[in-house]
């Protein structure tokens, strides 16, 4: 029986790719480990290796074909002892026909009622929902361009590095590899190895070194491959960077940015999926920023780099590839410590930050369809927290739900609930409700992962409760 070679998914998020090049041709004998083809995605070119042995009997997707869906049969192999030519051979000179698009197979989608292929609960998280309220600071008529969050972050760093020679980037794989998640793409080329520095895997060491360099007058940007690995370095972030200014009576500063992806990623399990927002936000002396869209990512990262205080800048891997409109301005910097109303409404206030904002916006759309007009507030900065904007919104809506992709206990959501109790009690017509991840380490299994994470539907249910529509 011929073995079918299917277009592989090369990352948890890949859905289609370009079949860039075939390295074998029909009639070639292959053994496991041989490289069959090169496949390109938006992030990288990968090699596709043979697992089975035999003879390539047919190539079904020509090289250079774009948008080949994961799971499409791209070639067949005849196993040992099988006559490769027995398969109806294509006319010798004819170029292999490009795959007809409709033939693209659903990726392993439970044929014959079998179990469905593994999915990820994070699909319910990452949204490209844009704010419906424009930043009033952007001048009328400013041209908007679409960029990914990844590009916005890179541009923010590049612009600040051009401006200020004290700024440098340091971290694992930031230079030659162009960033583990490609956020520092191109920086080595432009700024050279003096300012874009690959470190060994020594988080505690380079977080300390970076803090020391900041004390010594430089402006380091320390990238953590993910904030999970910053746990190795949290002592320097909290004890060295955050407290220096205070302990020295204002003599010694530590202007450093610790940045990298935070929160759950796709199916990476318990040790690689945590939201550290509440952890850092509890530390006096730190600035903590967690943007949602590209515009805020850029404007706030620039502000973070310029700040004289240590900043923890929490990004989100699931958001890196998302596109948003961003103003085409020479120097777009946002104020730290200001929340933003991303959708106006009058019936309920939904407060969130980072990836939770997209979930909140989706919930707001669903609620609108049911006649509930939700206002969505993006906190953007977790410390200092812009309580004024939250309280102001509450005054209007009298109901509040907090959405957080993270654990419920001692969370930002808990903090907001406390602030609202203390300072907005008279404006409340219902108790504040929290929509958070379940209170468990994030499980690997796709179905459990789904259950553990926040969804727009959970937000809708909470809003119905506080508006007494449940």
């Amino acid at each position: 029986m011929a073995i079918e070679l299917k277009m592989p998914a090369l990352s948890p998020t890949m859905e289609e790719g370009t079949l860039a090049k075939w390295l074998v041709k029909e009639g070639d004998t292959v053994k496991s480990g041989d490289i069959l083809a090169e496949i390109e995605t938006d992030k990288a070119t990968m090699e596709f290796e043979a697992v089975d042995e035999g003879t390539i009997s047919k190539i079904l997707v020509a090289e250079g074909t774009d948008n080949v869906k994961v799971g499409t049969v791209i070639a067949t192999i005849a196993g040992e002892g099988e006559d490769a030519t027995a398969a109806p051979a294509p006319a010798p000179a004819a170029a292999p026909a490009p795959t007809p698009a409709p033939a693209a197979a659903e990726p392993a989608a439970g044929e014959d009622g079998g179990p469905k292929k593994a999915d990820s609960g994070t699909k319910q998280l990452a949204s490209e929902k844009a704010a419906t309220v424009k930043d009033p600071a952007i001048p009328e008529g400013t041209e908007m361009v679409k960029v990914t969050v990844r590009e916005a972050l890179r541009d923010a760093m590049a612009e600040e590095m051009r401006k200020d020679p004290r700024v440098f980037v340091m971290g694992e794989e930031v230079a030659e590899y162009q960033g583990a998640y490609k956020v520092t793409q191109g920086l080595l080329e432009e700024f050279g190895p003096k300012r874009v520095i690959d470190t060994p895997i020594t988080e505690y060491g380079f977080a300390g070194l970076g803090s020391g360099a900041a004390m010594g007058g430089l402006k380091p940007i320390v990238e953590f491959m993910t904030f999970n690995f910053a746990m190795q370095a949290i002592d320097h972030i909290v004890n060295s960077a955050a407290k220096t200014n205070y302990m020295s009576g204002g003599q010694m500063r530590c202007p450093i940015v610790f940045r990298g992806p935070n929160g759950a990623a796709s199916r990476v399990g318990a040790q690689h999926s945590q939201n550290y927002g509440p952890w850092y936000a509890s530390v006096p002396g730190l600035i903590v920023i967690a943007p949602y869209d590209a515009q805020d990512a850029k404007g706030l990262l620039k502000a973070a780099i310029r700040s004289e205080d240590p900043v923890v800048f929490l990004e989100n891997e699931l958001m890196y590839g998302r596109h948003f409109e961003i103003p085409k301005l020479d120097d777009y910097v946002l104020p730290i410590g200001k929340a933003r109303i991303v959708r106006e409404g009058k019936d309920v206030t939904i407060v969130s930050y980072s990836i939770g904002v997209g979930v909140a916006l989706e919930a707001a759309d669903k609620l609108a369809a049911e006649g509930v007009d939700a206002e969505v507030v993006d906190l953007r900065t977790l410390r200092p927290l812009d309580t004024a904007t939250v309280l102001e919104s509450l005054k209007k809506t009298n109901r509040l739900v907090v959405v957080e992709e993270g654990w419920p206990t001692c969370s930002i959501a808990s903090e907001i609930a406390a602030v609202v109790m203390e300072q907005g009690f008279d404006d409340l017509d219902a108790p504040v409700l929290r929509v958070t991840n379940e209170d468990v380490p994030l499980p690997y299994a796709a179905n459990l992962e789904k259950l553990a994470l926040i969804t727009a539907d959970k937000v809708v249910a909470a809003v119905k409760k506080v508006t007494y529509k449940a």
Partner: protein
Amino acid sequence: MAKAPARKTTEPAKTNRERPDEPKRYEASKEQLLEFYKQMLLIRRFEEKAGQLYGLGFIGGFCHLYIGQEAVAVGLQSALDGEKDSVITGYRDHGHMLAYGIDPKVIMAELTGRAAGISRGKGGSMHMFSTEKKFYGGHGIVGAQVALGTGLAFAHKYNEDGGVAMAYFGDGAANQGQVYESFNMAELWKLPIIYVIENNQYAMGTSVNRSSAEDQLYKRGESFRIPGIQVDGMDVLACRGAAEEALAWVRSGKGPIILEMKTYRYRGHSMSDPAKYRSREEVQSVRDKSDPIEQVKRELEEMKVSEADLKAIEAEIRKIVNESADFAEQTPEPDPSELYTDVLVESY
């Protein structure tokens, strides 16, 4: 140019302390060598299949394959006393599990996140454990297993159970600070531990000499008075021989020892690593010249094992692997009620 990973370059560091003897290449009987061959081939085919299932979307998240490094886990673990000795490693852990003879089905089912998986689907590729085999995982944070392994050794000594801990880590982890804090305590307290540095030359995309001031990693214990041996990690018999020597050292109460296994990973760091930091020729050259499985295959042929027998083994392994994949694709996901189980042991 390809750098041969397996060249014997061991030059004992100059020292005035007692050192272990230079390990001898293990002399395996035909049966033993056949067993090593089967185990390595099982790991190779299992990992290739895992890569394929990842490509088809059955496995999610991170998936770090052990292809190319098979001789290390097979050679070392074959020397351990399964009743007493413990093992711990990082996230590239499928091979170590298979080298223990753990059923490939429950490993593959963990990779696909199913209830039948060894961690009931809750751990995934990086987090697999078998306390029954004294295999303590399966850890996702680079270097963490070194301190944890030192703790396993502490427990062996404390309990006077005669066991030795073996802690595997990579050349990348070898730069983490906790590794050296662990080295110091291990030597200070003469803990029974073998630190195994699986030097596959690349910490993700960074080669050893771009990240390590002392790139002869077996010397990394010198300032703690821990002896180190550099071993050809592409030769399963050299691995086994080194394990024998290291075990003799540790079991005699002389404290920790470091084995630097010079090996090579053929695939990217994880499935989503395009591995552009090295040339295709480099990888191909290692495959052609020092493949651990091909090497054993040649020796088996010299021992007059027939081609038909080797083919039969290949077919048998493929069958086992295919069955594990079929099982892992079909067995059900965990029950939703499992979301809140195993968070704590007791109820409060």
